[in-house]
């Protein structure tokens, strides 16, 4: 570990080779000089067992003077480098020769693994996107499947306008509780206990006051509906596809109201006891949901209703008008129910709803009044009556943020407006603007026969269809 000078080497060489000292000294100096000479001639000198001396060019480089901070350039020069022979290298490194490079598994992810993780996340994103697209496809399918039965039913509607019209007004109302309930039910579960009677009375009183014959359907309808209503509340959170689910629910609900009541009567009678308990429980839940919403949005709702009554144009002329009129019934029903008997309520609420819906003002009134006056023919009165009695109870649940969209299938009836797309607008925005629900954009796509609805051009003319509830069988 000491510092060895040239003279030490000469001494050792003398001891080793047995040469005279001056000869050995001469040899060592000649050794060094020969290396220099060889470098000057060939720029490279190889000595076996020792290594390679090379003369290398170093180009100019910029630097900074440490003291003054000025920029200076270090001139290029030539420099002697030495690369030891492999034998020499091994000899020098002998103390550490037993070490070998070892691969590390210290838990840090390598860059490749990180890349792989990134790729995975990308894949999941793609998957989610694909599921979304499939959902929309499903929506389209149901939509496309709709029209044909709708046409058949429209014919029925014309024949039985009073019966059908009411469901038209009701359906959106009935559907919304589906959305509301899961949210409102549980948190408010306790409140209804105190306030049940208020909501229950209308339903309970009405049948009693009226005809005993009519009672059964009245009682049973909610039974038919609400189990149907409840199931989705359980399913929805699990299934994640509320749109599809709800549409299914609607279908099950709609038919029950006007048509199936009659058919269901016998079945329901048998299990009346169970049904009663279920009804009571469900009514409690419904009342809870309604009360919660009603109290929260009371003021807003009133103003909304007033606006509607004043004839201000809503964004969605057709659907929301009907809905708005449906709301108009609410306050009246609420106030009158406790005071008046059922008949008057029915008479009162119905004409309002009918007159509000633009088509067939006279017919329904006549039909209903005749129904009421007669009140004997069960099959005719039942659907009517049922739907009417349901309306107050369910209406009470529905409050402001009623969107015509999410739960129903719609029939396209003509063009509402032709819209020219501006920069930054999307079909979802159009759907939100004209229907109040972003989920209805597929109808716009369908109505305009758009092939590539993900890429719409600025300035493109888009026909906004008029959507009407599609009544199901």
């Amino acid at each position, binding site marked *: *570990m*000491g*510092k*060895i*000078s*040239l003279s030490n*080497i000469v001494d*050792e*060489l003398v001891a*080793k*080779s047995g*040469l005279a000292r001056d*000869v050995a000294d*001469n*040899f*060592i100096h*000649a*050794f*060094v*000089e*020969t*290396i*220099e*000479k*060889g470098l*000057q*001639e*060939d720029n*490279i*000198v*190889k*000595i*076996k*067992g020792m*290594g390679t*001396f090379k003369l290398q060019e170093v180009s100019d480089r910029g630097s900074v003077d440490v003291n003054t901070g000025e920029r200076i350039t270090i001139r290029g*020069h*030539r*420099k*002697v*480098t*030495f690369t*030891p022979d492999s034998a*020499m*290298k091994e*000899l*020098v*490194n*002998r103390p*550490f020769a037993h*070490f*070998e*490079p*070892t*691969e*590390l598994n210290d838990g*840090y992810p*390598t*860059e490749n*693994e990180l890349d792989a993780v990134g790729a995975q996340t990308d894949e999941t994103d793609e998957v989610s996107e694909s599921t979304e697209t499939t959902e929309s496809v499903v929506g389209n399918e149901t939509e496309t499947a709709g029209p044909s039965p709708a046409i058949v039913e429209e014919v029925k509607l014309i024949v039985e306008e009073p019966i059908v019209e009411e469901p038209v007004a009701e359906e959106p109302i009935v559907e919304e509780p589906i959305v509301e309930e899961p949210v409102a039910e549980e948190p408010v579960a306790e409140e209804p206990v105190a306030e049940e009677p208020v909501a229950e009375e209308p339903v309970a009183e009405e049948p009693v006051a009226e005809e005993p014959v009519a009672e059964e359907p009245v009682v049973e309808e909610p039974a038919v509906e609400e189990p149907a209503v409840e199931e989705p509340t359980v399913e929805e959170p699990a299934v994640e596809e509320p749109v599809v689910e709800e549409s299914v629910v609607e279908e099950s609900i709609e038919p029950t109201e006007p048509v199936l009541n009659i058919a269901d009567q016998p079945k329901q009678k048998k299990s009346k006891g169970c049904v009663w308990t279920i009804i009571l429980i469900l009514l409690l839940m419904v009342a809870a949901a309604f009360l919660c919403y009603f109290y929260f949005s009371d003021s807003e709702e009133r103003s909304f209703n007033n606006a509607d009554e004043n004839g201000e144009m809503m964004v969605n002329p057709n659907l929301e008008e009907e809905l708005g009129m449906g709301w108009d019934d609410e306050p009246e029903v609420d106030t009158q129910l406790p005071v008046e008997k059922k008949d008057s309520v029915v008479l009162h609420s119905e004409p309002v709803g009918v007159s509000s819906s633009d088509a067939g003002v006279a017919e329904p009134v006549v039909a209903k009044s005749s129904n009421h006056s007669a009140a004997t023919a069960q099959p005719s009165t039942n659907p009517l009556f049922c739907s009417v009695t349901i309306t107050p109870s369910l209406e009470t649940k529905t409050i402001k943020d009623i969107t015509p969209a999410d739960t129903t299938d719609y029939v396209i009836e003509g063009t509402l407006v032709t819209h020219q797309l501006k920069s930054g607008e999307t079909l979802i925005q159009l759907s939100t603007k004209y229907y109040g629900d972003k989920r209805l954009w597929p109808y716009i796509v369908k109505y305009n026969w758009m092939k590539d609805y993900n890429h719409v051009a600025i300035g493109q003319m888009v026909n906004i269809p008029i959507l009407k509830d599609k009544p199901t069988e």
Partner: protein
Amino acid sequence: MNNKEFINELAKQTNLTAGVTTKLINDTVKILEEHFQQNDVVNIPSFGTFEVKKKMERISVNPTTGKRYLIPPKLVLAFKQSNMLKDKFNAE
């Protein structure tokens, strides 16, 4: 200038036979090796210094596989030219 040329040139300068020169060169290299093995610093005036330096262990990553390796420490022979030698080659 390869090893043979170097031997011939050195033999010519020292007026020795090539065989003797070869033997002397090998002896000299052996002597240097011994010093290097003892981590000695060999200083040749007007030429430069030979020194054995220890390189510390380090972690290296294979860029193609991304695997990480621990490179063990090692001893390397380093040569640093003297200023005289530097001036000699950069005189002009």
